[in-house]
């Protein structure tokens, strides 16, 4: 009951935060030089005053800023995300098309990196100081320090160009109609390289984090007590050490989940993955205000949801933590 109340409160607060985000983003975007009409006029390779006026009037950019803001907020409150004049599509359609690929990519990478990272971290901590620990640490450091796009490109060179095992780009084979399992397998093959690229970086973070945290908890009094009681080493590791060591990892993972949404822009670009990161990036360059605000809104909502989930998970992992507003 207490937990439900907590969640309800947080959702309410989240909505207030979202409205704040919308207003702030709306005003921030307008600070950037240029507007969508000017960008489109520039692309035409020619322009005149009439053309700019027509576009501005169509986009509603000729009205006072506060009026535009009010209209936008009112629309958002009625779940109308507006229209992208540039792409000639309702923003909500664009978001609906581009969000699932990103969630698939980042979701896969998130789970993989967490599982692999924590596993490697635990292994390293158990063998602390030995060569296998050093090997894991060095590998983790390597992937942590290497730029994402480079790892991706090297993956493409090895697995697509040289070995020809995996497709280099796209989310599904184009030009063949696949259904059911064959389609899933196809998407899976396309998913391997981009997901792995994203995974390696984040895995490194979790591995290093887990290792450090495990080593810290390993020598605390309650572990020594458990060991003195004769509890076997495996269950000490699982129940006493890991469970306490995992909390900082959960914190970081919660933050990273939000970062994964934005941080996938590079990977989406390298692998031509039709996700929301690229949509946002292109919208920035083109000053496609409505699309950009829509992306900001959706990703902010996701980050707020993930943070809420993180807090709930805290209380599950460590019952001593009380949920409170």
């Amino acid at each position, binding site marked *: 009951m207490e937990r439900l109340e907590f969640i309800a409160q947080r959702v309410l607060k989240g909505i207030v935060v979202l409205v704040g985000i919308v207003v702030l983003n709306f005003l921030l975007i307008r600070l*950037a*030089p*240029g*507007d969508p009409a*000017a*960008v*489109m*006029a*520039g*692309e*035409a*390779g*020619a*322009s*005149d*005053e*009439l*053309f*700019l006026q*027509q576009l501005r009037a*169509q986009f509603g950019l000729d009205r006072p800023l506060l009026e535009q803001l009010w209209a936008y907020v009112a629309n958002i409150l009625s779940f109308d995300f507006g229209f992208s*004049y*540039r*792409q*000639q*599509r309702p923003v909500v359609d*664009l978001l609906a*098309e*581009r969000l699932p*690929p990103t969630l698939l990519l980042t979701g896969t990478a998130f789970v993989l990196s967490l599982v692999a990272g924590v596993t490697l971290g635990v292994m390293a901590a158990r063998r602390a100081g030995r060569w296998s620990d050093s090997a894991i640490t060095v590998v983790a450091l390597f992937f942590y320090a290497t730029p994402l*796009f480079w790892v991706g*490109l090297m993956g*493409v*060179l090895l697995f*697509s*160009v040289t070995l*020809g095992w995996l497709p*280099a*780009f*796209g*989310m*599904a084979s*184009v*030009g063949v109609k696949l259904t059911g399992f064959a389609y899933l397998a196809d998407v899976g093959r396309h998913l391997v390289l981009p997901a792995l690229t994203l995974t390696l970086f984040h895995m490194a973070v979790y591995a290093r984090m887990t290792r450090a945290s495990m080593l810290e908890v390993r020598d605390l009094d309650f572990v020594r007590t458990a060991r003195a009681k004769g509890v076997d080493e495996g269950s000490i590791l699982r129940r006493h050490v890991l469970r306490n060591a995992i909390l900082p990892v959960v914190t970081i993972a919660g933050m990273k989940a939000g970062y994964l949404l934005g941080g996938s822009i590079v990977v989406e*670009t*390298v*692998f*031509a*993955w*039709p*996700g929301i990161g*690229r*949509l946002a990036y*292109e919208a*920035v*360059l*083109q*000053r496609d205000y409505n699309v950009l605000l829509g992306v900001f809104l959706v990703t902010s909502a996701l980050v707020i949801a993930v943070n809420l989930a993180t807090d709930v998970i805290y209380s599950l992992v460590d019952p001593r933590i009380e949920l409170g507003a």
Partner: protein
Amino acid sequence: MSLVRPIATLLAGALAAGMLAAAPAAAQAPADPPRGGTMNIIISPEPPTLMLGINQTTPAAIVGGKIYESLLRYDFDLKPMPGLAKSWTVSPDGLTYTFKLQEGVKWHDGTPFTADDVVFSTKTYLTAVHPRSRPIFQRAEEITAPDPLTVVFKLKGPFAPFIMAWEPSTAPIVPKHIYEGTDFRTNPANNKPIGTGPFKLKEWVRGSHIHFVRNDDYWQKGKPYLDAIYYRVLPDASARVVAMETGQTHLSAFADIETFEVPRLKALPNLEMTTKGYEYLAQIVWLDFNLRNKPFDDRRFRQAVYHAIDRNFLRDRIWFGLGKPATGPIHSSIPHYDANVPKYPFDPKKAEALLDEMGLKRGADGVRARITLDQLPYGDVYIRAGEYIRQALGRIGVQVNLRSADVATWGDRVRNWDYDMTLQVLSQLGHPALGVSRLYVSSNIRKGVLFSNVNGYSNPRIDELFDKAAVAVDPAEAQKMYTEIQKILVEDVPVAWLLELDFPTFIDKRFGNVVTSAIGVRDGFADVFMRR
């Protein structure tokens, strides 16, 4: 047409008999190309829309050119060829243009195409939405359709370049029955384009690909040869190289491939490279000076800068041989080009002498002047060119501060005259009156408008010559005026013309007849075929 085919067959036979080993495989086009095949083509960036009337970006023109057609096509020498118009005549006074249209043309929805569509497109549609064709079609006094297959344009005054305006991104012909009486910019058909072209839009998966299928009712019987075209959106330059290298895509054009990758791709056995197909656009990259700012108001300073830049170095080291030094405001593939103008060879000593003469002496730190160069945000090659210019001018004592921004910010600065110097690149659109005069005539100095005369050059003689040359009926008379224009402008150096750009088009050798006109990959691809 009936004569051409047997001759081509003979030629092909001769090639097959004796010259097969010597001729590159891709150079031969069979007389009767096989049907079928799918072409995968790189597109980057993704076009915002395929409706050429409301968007004329290069990607939109490339993809939309498969759907929409115009009345004419142009060969590599910019001579008009039949398009939707079968034949055409121009009255001796240069005032009346009569186009006879092809028979049996249908829109993608099955409705017959008629002269009314052409009248609607030029008179109503394009003058409402298209900033580049508005001034062209507003020159028409009267546009009429005396019968369903004839269109007559009566101009208010002669305008020789009128015949050059008929390519799909300048004058796309749109269906009257779909657009008449609607809001052109928001018509739902903008997303489900209906044209007359050889390919129909089947599906567009945003961020991934655009799928075209063969238009079985295309007016050129038996064409197109291909069954389908996929435009693959590949935003990353390295991914595009891999795609061409591995044969996953079959065609790249414009700046898809970074210049430094060109030598490597050129050497690959599965690809051929051509720089043909850009004659209509004819892009020149130039260094633009804001003439309102000191010291750019002094002609000697501009001449000094021009002398200080080694254009051969730019061509060889930055553009990897893709282009040639420009001699003046008009591109050499455009009508009325004249090479006989003052020259500005690379000569730093002369540049320094000019600066000395101006009284711009080197200070204690060796610097004569400090200026800012706005980097053109169109890709790495322009950034590198900007860096070279900073070095080159540094050598003559002009210290250049580089300023970077994204496209929107750069455009905002330039159109509002908030810059010292910037690189610029623009198409000349088949005729100096369409793509060149707009940059130099004083009537086009309009603050807030990009690609107008932003640098503020004003010369009454130039204004007069451009005005008269555009309406001259006699080509020789026009040539005289354009020659004088080029001499005066090159003497004045309102901007420093650097290179005529060559773009590399890479074609997978399995495909033939890919580049067949002056608009290259933006053309309809009715003739493209896949070898068996």
